[in-house]
């Protein structure tokens, strides 16, 4: 059951992507959870979230980005430079944060020395930083621009009806993911955090219909699964910088008496939990849903709302401790984690704040030492 999710979650050139390509399907890569996948679904294009896993060295990315910047976009550029993303028919870059926004220029420039790595459709999709009415209006314009650009490039027609039908299809998955989250919130543990993260991660690269079917079966199976009696494992929440690598969750769960029961991570169930209106104007519904919730610290002036939502999850899922990590040079999560730590510790919620390098290039010894010490604190 889990194999299909792990296949998609842990490889860039995974089976679902290969078979879509073999059928002649188009693929567009994107960099941020603020890009509405429904739009691509409506155009029968497979949206694939760009990832940095499988990076083995950094010589291309270092040349364009320099050393003092987040390693995540650097890993994406490195992979692009190595030709790992040539299966993409298009790429969409968003200003998720400043480092990610720089990927636009660096990738284009790297194309001069690495021919063929910049796809014909290389599009910058702007996302406002405020949820004011003005911001929403602007975001709707951006969405409409992107729809036109896709229509011209791929010779497709993205009608309001098609969009609404895609919203309905995505909502089926959103409901199921919410059910999965409800199960994880219970004290009877039926799924590990690593498995759950692999599931949501797979959702960012698989075709949605295929994903929804797999998810439906998984939820059905988990509902019948009996939880272990007297589970003494500590219940952990992981939050912070981008993570598209399940090994981070694995590191927490593997050698410790712990289970990750919730997370607020890009690539995790962040926006996926909430359904999108199926009755309103499709573009307006997408704009309100994607921009409205402000769960990422890239959004201005919403710290209190984010703290409240975090506390709500902590209560709902009976969290024993929160691990807040940030990739080095991640100003957004680095500073927000400091605030979260201050405010949560005040309420007696144990927090571990760690800075790390992103994913595949990391030696995990230091990270493990700090996580071990945190569990010693939780078990004292």
């Amino acid at each position, binding site marked *: 059951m889990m194999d299909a999710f792990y296949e998609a979650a842990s490889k860039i050139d995974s089976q679902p992507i290969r078979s879509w390509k073999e059928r002649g399907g188009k693929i567009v890569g994107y960099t941020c959870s603020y890009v509405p996948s429904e739009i691509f679904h409506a155009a029968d294009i497979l949206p694939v979230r760009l990832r940095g896993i499988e990076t083995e060295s950094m010589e291309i990315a270092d040349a364009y980005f320099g050393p003092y910047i987040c390693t995540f976009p650097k890993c994406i550029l490195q992979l692009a430079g190595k030709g790992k993303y040539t299966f993409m028919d298009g790429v969409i870059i968003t200003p998720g944060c400043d480092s990610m926004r720089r990927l636009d220029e660096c990738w284009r420039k790297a194309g001069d020395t690495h021919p063929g790595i910049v796809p014909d459709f290389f599009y910058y999709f702007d996302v406002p930083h405020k949820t004011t009415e003005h911001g929403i209006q602007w975001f709707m314009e951006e969405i409409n621009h992107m729809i036109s650009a896709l229509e011209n490039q791929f010779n497709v027609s993205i009608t309001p009806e098609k969009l609404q039908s895609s919203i309905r299809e995505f909502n089926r998955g959103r409901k199921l993911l919410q059910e999965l989250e409800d199960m994880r919130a219970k004290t009877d543990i039926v799924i590990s955090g690593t498995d759950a993260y692999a599931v949501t991660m797979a959702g960012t690269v698989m075709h949605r219909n295929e994903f929804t079917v797999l998810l439906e079966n998984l939820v059905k199976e988990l509902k019948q699964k009996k939880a272990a009696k007297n589970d003494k494992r500590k219940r952990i929440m992981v939050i912070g910088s981008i993570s598209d690598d399940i090994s981070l969750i694995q590191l927490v769960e593997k050698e410790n008496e712990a289970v990750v029961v919730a997370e607020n991570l890009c690539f995790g169930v962040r926006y996926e939990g909430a359904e999108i209106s199926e009755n309103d104007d499709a573009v307006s519904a997408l704009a309100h849903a994607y921009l409205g919730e402000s769960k990422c610290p890239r959004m201005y002036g919403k710290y209190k709302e984010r703290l409240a939502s975090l506390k709500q999850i902590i209560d709902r899922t009976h969290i024993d401790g929160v691990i807040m990590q940030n990739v080095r040079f991640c100003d957004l999560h680095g500073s927000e984690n400091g605030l979260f730590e201050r405010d949560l510790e005040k309420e007696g919620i144990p927090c571990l*704040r760690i*800075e790390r390098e992103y994913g595949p290039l990391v030696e995990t010894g230091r990270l493990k*030492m*700090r996580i071990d010490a945190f569990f*010693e604190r939780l078990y004292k």
Partner: protein
Amino acid sequence: MSRVAGCDVGSLTSKAVIMENNKILGWSIIKSKSDPEESANSAMQTALEKAGCTLDSIQYCVGTGYGRDRISFINETKSEIACHGMGAKWLVPSARTIIDIGGQDCKAIRIDKDGVVEKFITNDKCASGTGRFLEVMAKVLDIGLDELGDMTEKTETPITFASMCTVWAQADIIKYINSGYSVEDIGAGINAAMAKRVAMLANTVKIENDVCMTGGVAKNKGVVSTLEKVLGVRIRRVRKADPQIAGALGAALISQSKINNGGSK
């Protein structure tokens, strides 16, 4: 009678401590080898010889440090954070904040009255502010690590370094040497740079009195005295044992509490 041990396989040195009835029977500090298992065996053997006993007589042993998972003779492992907390508590009973500077990392740990860790922070993947930093700088100045510690009290005019990066600071030192600055000024500047870097970590965990320092760098008088000035607190000197063995000592103390609570080999 309970005879226990603790073994701390660190990045630069490995340490072992043998204890009996809350007293140190023997201890060792050796340079770590390329094989952590061998480092552990060698440190343990030296400590056993000093204590005049054999490995068979050890009832419980806890391992810690970066090489802890590779030690063959231990009953369990603990993080060095917990071990340094316990070790420092034994060395300085009034300690609530511990600044530990080891070979490749530095930590600031806040403990409660029982030595249990409340809050900690460590540096990340950078030699700046670690024992390795001092080692490299002493080498550039062509002096011993002990001598470097004495430099601070010998001058009133330490150099200020623009960067705490080990590589950049090294280049800076060479520039100062060539410009004719005295070794004392440069050495005191190195100690001050180190102290400022570590102060940043200590401030992050919110210092509570008393403060003590463990790890090899606690033996550098210059760093300790500058750190006192920068933090504006008195740092209790560790006198009961070598501050460098605090981690292994804490591991031995955890072993002791295991025996007292009924665990055995």
